[in-house]
């Protein structure tokens, strides 16, 4: 579903990503771990088709990405620590807007359905600025699922979430898995959400240094992570 071949990214003189190669099959759930400055957000931007790599090949759904892959962005959904939602608009208007930007047919129907899925029907016409943090999170998830993306990218999704919100997010991750969507979660927090992963990747200093099936206990994974990343206790 996603394939990276020798992806390198330079910004100015700095090499941020170096010869990254991996394959993600359809329906797989990957967690990408790494310390700050490892190149995770750059990797995210390249996967989200926001940024072109300096060299290398990227394939989404078997199709090679050329010229920024604008059309391929329709296959992607993103959940980030920012909600991408407009304060002054209602839940409905927010999602209708994105539906239009993604060229969805039968937009109103899709919007109603996805808002129902996240349990926000009662706030359909409510302005987002009145939402609680939990409601905001749910609407952000709805925004992502609205376009029925084959691939879901998560960028540090656990940042700033309280226990309840973490619970909601975990439920969503589980359902993404059950719906057989391809999921790639980028995070530096390996206490949460790792249990859903089929494989674990570790990135450090722009290179993919670890890529194994997820048969680990959290403690073992922690040790491996610290060792790989070279942090002394």
């Amino acid at each position, binding site marked *: 579903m996603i394939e990276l071949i020798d992806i390198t990214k330079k910004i100015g003189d700095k090499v941020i990503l170096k010869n990254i190669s991996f394959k993600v099959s359809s329906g797989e759930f990957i967690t990408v771990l790494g310390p700050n400055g490892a190149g995770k957000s750059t990797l995210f931007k390249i996967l989200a088709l926001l940024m072109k790599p300096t060299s290398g090949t990227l394939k989404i759904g078997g199709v090679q990405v050329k010229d920024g892959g604008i059309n391929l962005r329709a296959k992607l959904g993103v959940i980030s620590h920012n909600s991408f939602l407009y*304060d002054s608009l209602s839940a409905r208007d927010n999602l209708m807007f994105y539906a239009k930007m993604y060229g969805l047919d039968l937009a109103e129907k899709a919007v109603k359905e996805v808002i129902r899925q996240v349990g926000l029907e009662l706030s359909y016409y409510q302005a987002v600025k009145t939402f609680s943090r939990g409601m905001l999170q749910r609407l952000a998830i709805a925004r992502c699922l609205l376009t029925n993306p084959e691939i879901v990218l998560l960028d540090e999704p656990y940042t700033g979430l309280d226990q309840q919100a973490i619970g909601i997010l975990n439920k969503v991750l589980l359902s993404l898995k059950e719906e057989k969507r391809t999921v790639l979660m980028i995070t530096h927090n390996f206490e949460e959400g790792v249990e859903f992963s089929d494989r674990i990747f570790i990135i450090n200093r722009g290179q993919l240094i670890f890529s194994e099936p997820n048969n680990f206990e959290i403690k073992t994974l922690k040790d491996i992570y610290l060792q790989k990343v070279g942090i002394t206790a």
Partner: protein
Amino acid sequence: MTLIKSALAIVEKDLKAEFHSKEMLSVMLVFALIVLVIFNFAFDVKKQIVQDIFPGMIWITFYFSGLLGLNRSFFIEKNQDCLLGLMLAPVDRSVIFVGKMLSNFIFLLIIEILTLPLFFIFLNIALPQNLALFFLVLFLGSLGFVAIGTFLAALSVNTRASDILLPVLLFPVLIPVVLGSVAATKGIFLNMPITDWSIWLKILGVYDLLFIVVPFMLFEILLEV
């Protein structure tokens, strides 16, 4: 086709948001009124002087009021990283420029329509003979402002200095529009024959075209992440 559709979706979104919050328009309107009142006090309202400086007064009011709107228009995109949300969509980034420019244009026109009658009343200015031409000048002048203004607003909001950088970048580059709109307005209100001042319409036209096309082409580069 999707370009126009997506741009219009952005315009619709901005209009709806403003309709609910009324933050931007209210500030712009109040500011314009304050400027009008200050002008009243600052300049001795003897008839002849007022006739002379009237064109300059209205355009200064519109440009400074417009400046507030420009800053605002990208602030709302910075909030919750909505700009990134737009860039994730399967559309050319230049679409964002077109959409934003159009919504800013509409907002500026609204302010102009609301404040102009007050200018006429307070300063005792007679309506120009050729109203249609006046509207044309308003259109061209506002469009030029909004085109380069939207572009530079997108640029400044993405710097450390943020919105305070915008006037520094915008006003020097805006000079041809300032001169053009004021001169053409003067021509209209002094009832000068159009051949005398039609050159200004051409200058405004060229400026508008240039500073819609070039920012359109550069916008993709501006928004590189």
